[in-house]
């Protein structure tokens, strides 16, 4: 039971971190892309 909770905690933590970092990275990359397109 304890190990199951530990594994679930790990999955939740790492998956949450990956989703958060990807979402923020994508959102911050969008204005750059838009600027580049406008420049071209």
């Amino acid at each position: 039971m304890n190990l199951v909770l530990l594994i679930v905690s790990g999955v939740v933590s790492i998956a949450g971190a990956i989703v958060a970092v990807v979402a923020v990275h994508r959102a911050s990359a969008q204005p750059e892309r838009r600027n580049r397109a406008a420049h071209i």
Partner: protein
Amino acid sequence: MSYKIDKLDRHSRFVILAPMPLRLLIWLVFGVGSAVLPLFLAGLIIFDRGLFTAVSDTWSRGELVLISMTLLIAALGDLVVYATEFAKVKALMTVTSGFLILVSAVWYMDVFGNIISHQQFKEDFLRHWSPLFFIFALINATVCIMLPKKDRIEQ
């Protein structure tokens, strides 16, 4: 309802709106550093008394679980209080932090309850696996701190 950060003093404003690497550094030094410090002190005492068998002696009674819980709550507070433009990410991190806080609270209450009633507690599990839980909690808390904040406080 929100308060503009302009109303805050210069130092508070600097900490909230500091660039992400600086916010992380402040978090690591003053948050994580001070939370882990009692482990070093406990290690020194154990070593001084001649009872030292392994480094895990310092976290064999659930100390790392307790530290994880306090770090997660501090990081969650930082996430919840300040406004951010990433509302969905904020909601996700609030849920994951809440789950980890719940797990750590249950584990610590279980261990502490067994210790004070002189019953068998899961010492081996804590020795071997609580550092891993601490790393998971640290990853989650660090992402909460890293999330960009806007210049206002949510009410």
